[in-house]
């Protein structure tokens, strides 16, 4: 089994705010991340697929195709957007990096051919904060 990773990036605004809580409770839990007028990040997204290299091409998967799938179904919907307001698949969810990684997994999965398995979504919110999601255990 070989693991193949493609890295992409997008810039977006968001805030962490639970509408079921009071303003004070949000401030207490999320601190400055709850700022009502948003803040933002340069997100780095690493998508890892796994499989056996094809004997004819030597590829686990054509990485250019992987890049295009990520761009069409993820980057196009997130880049230069407000994650809370503009992104259909984040509606009704808390826009944490954890939830965003899960949502990206679920968005990508139907678009990958059966020959490759999605292995990991690694999402950097800042150079020092990232999450990894490996699908349902």
């Amino acid at each position, binding site marked *: 089994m070989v693991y193949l990773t493609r890295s992409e990036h997008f810039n977006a605004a968001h805030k962490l705010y639970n509408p079921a809580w009071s303003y004070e409770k949000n401030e207490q839990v999320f601190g400055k991340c709850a700022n009502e007028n948003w803040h933002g*990040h340069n997100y780095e997204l690493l998508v890892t697929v796994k499989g056996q290299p094809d004997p004819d091409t030597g590829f686990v998967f054509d990485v250019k195709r992987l890049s295009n799938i990520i761009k069409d179904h993820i980057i196009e919907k997130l880049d230069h957007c407000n994650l809370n307001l503009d992104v259909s698949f984040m509606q009704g969810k808390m826009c944490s990096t954890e939830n965003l990684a899960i949502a990206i997994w679920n968005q990508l999965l139907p678009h990958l051919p059966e020959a490759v398995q999605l292995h990991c979504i690694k999402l950097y919110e800042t150079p020092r904060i990232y999450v990894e999601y490996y699908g349902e255990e």
Partner: protein
Amino acid sequence: MGDKVAVYRKEHFNAAHRLYNPGWDAAENERIFGKCARPNYHGHNYELEVKVTGVPDKRTGYVMDMKLLSDLIKREVHSRFDHKNLNLDTEEFKNLNPTAENIVRVIYDLLRPHIDAEKDLLVRLYETPRNFAEYPA
């Protein structure tokens, strides 16, 4: 070559913004600024590099105490911009488009009065790992 030495301090902050000229209609803003003009904002992890140049003090060996420089950046820059919406939450960009060019000049002007006049100051601001601006040029 003289006796001058340059010291640098790196800091970072996260903020939302959009690029928009209120003197233009939405179509013209879209034409000039593209997706950076989107109404619900997007955001960045801004990386800031502050360079101070001067002759090291004979008693301390310092051009400038890095802890004091760090505290100064936190007080003048972070308190204003970190986890904020640059367009909505700051006095500095109420009437100034928050491009990397304008932000780097604003930061220079905020820091300059607090650094010894005989020292040179240069500020570099990364909006993304590949887009950055420097002042003075």
